[in-house]
């Protein structure tokens, strides 16, 4: 058995945490882009597109993230695509994030009074102009806090990628434990690192909520 000092453990966990951060950022940025596309589709007023978006959102909200990971990872290999654990995790988390963000943003856009759409229509603005100049600037203010708040779920969601063998924070913790047999110490450290990542995000979310609550 190899001897690990506390510093060795922490150093390795922190190195692995870089992958947790990378995966979170990828999923969040990818999820934002896909979510924006889905939101635009939903607002387009075209029925088939709206159904598609609704089906997508329901599918990813109604199934465990772990199953989504398995389906992407094992499903794509079955279809003959050689997909790495990193790519599978990035895709699955992107889908997951986009579905939830689409739903969060739907709520934010729906809180805007219908009169904003009607006034824009009566002034001759087209759909794109109404969305970009009237609806989105207002919706973004409302959406910022819950969106940042949801990013916490994304960070924690990346832990599941350990199960398909992607070496991020949780997987590194498991591996270190297998070598040292000090589960409490190691997983306490893992938890603390997750907390250090998530706490600033939820703090930012609370600040944003205060800032934009009730102001223009």
């Amino acid at each position, binding site marked *: 058995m190899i001897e690990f000092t506390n510093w060795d453990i922490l150093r390795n966990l922190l190195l692995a945490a870089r992958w947790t951060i990378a995966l979170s950022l990828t999923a969040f940025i990818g999820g934002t882009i896909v979510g924006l596309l889905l939101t635009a589709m939903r607002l387009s007023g075209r029925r088939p597109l709206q159904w598609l978006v609704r089906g997508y959102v329901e599918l990813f909200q109604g199934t465990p993230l772990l199953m989504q990971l398995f389906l992407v990872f094992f499903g794509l290999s079955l279809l003959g695509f050689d997909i790495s654990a990193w790519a599978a995790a990035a895709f699955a988390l992107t889908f997951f994030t986009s579905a939830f963000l689409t739903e969060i943003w739907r709520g934010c856009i729906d809180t805007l*009074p219908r*009169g*904003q759409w*009607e*006034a824009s*229509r*009566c*002034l*001759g*603005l*087209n*759909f794109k*102009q109404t969305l970009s*100049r*009237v609806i989105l*600037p*207002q919706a973004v*203010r409302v959406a910022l806090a819950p969106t940042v708040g949801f990013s916490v779920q994304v960070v924690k969601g990346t832990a599941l990628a350990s199960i398909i063998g992607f070496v991020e924070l949780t997987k590194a913790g498991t591996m270190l434990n297998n070598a040292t047999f000090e589960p409490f110490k190691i997983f306490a450290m893992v938890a603390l690192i997750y907390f250090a990542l998530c706490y600033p995000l939820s703090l930012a979310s609370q600040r944003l909520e205060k800032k934009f609550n009730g102001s*223009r």
Partner: protein
Amino acid sequence: MALVNIDQVHKYYGDLHVLKGIDLKIDAGEVVSIIGRSGSGKSTLLRCMNGLEAYQHGGIVVDNKEVSSDEKQVRLLARSVGMVFQSFNLFPHLTVGENIMLAPKLVLKLSSKEARALAEDKLDKVGLAEKIDEYPDCLSGGQQQRVAIARALAMSPKVLLCDEITSALDPELVGEVLRVLEQLASEGMTLVLVTHEMNFARDVGDRVVFMHMGKVWESGPAKEVFENPTTPELKSFINAVL
């Protein structure tokens, strides 16, 4: 041809028959007040005139343009028909000036400078020139509604539809909005108002249309309608509100 031609218009909300064969012609320069109890269909009729609401039978032609709720047609109509709402519907994230300049810039393709001049001119008309750089939530309800009127006027509409535009205002703020309307009327603007301001309808309006159960129940020159209502429904309505 009249500016607004409404011909046998029927509208349903599901099984509910809200407009039952409306005929109405409005000439350029006329001030027409649509009055009636809530649920009589007056706001719905107004919202059909610029395509905000679809209708199922009949036809509406405004300024020689067929009215439909088709997205393109609504945009085309926006150049002829302006609308002011009960709840103002100003854009809260934009200043007063930006509220007014938005559509002239995007739809009429005016330069920023031209749009700004236009906004100043229209704000001056409603007596709020000094508020151009304020945000709507710094203004009183009456001021916000006057900005909404200026915003509609900036598109130089042929007819201005006003949907109960004083109903959400504190009583002491109603007068300033009505004075703006009175001035517009005296300048020859065509106004169609759904209103509960009976004094305004009688004194400033040319014509009054009384709606009841989805029909034009009675209509005629404003003073005559108020002095000699012929139907019992209008008599009881006038007694209730005056």
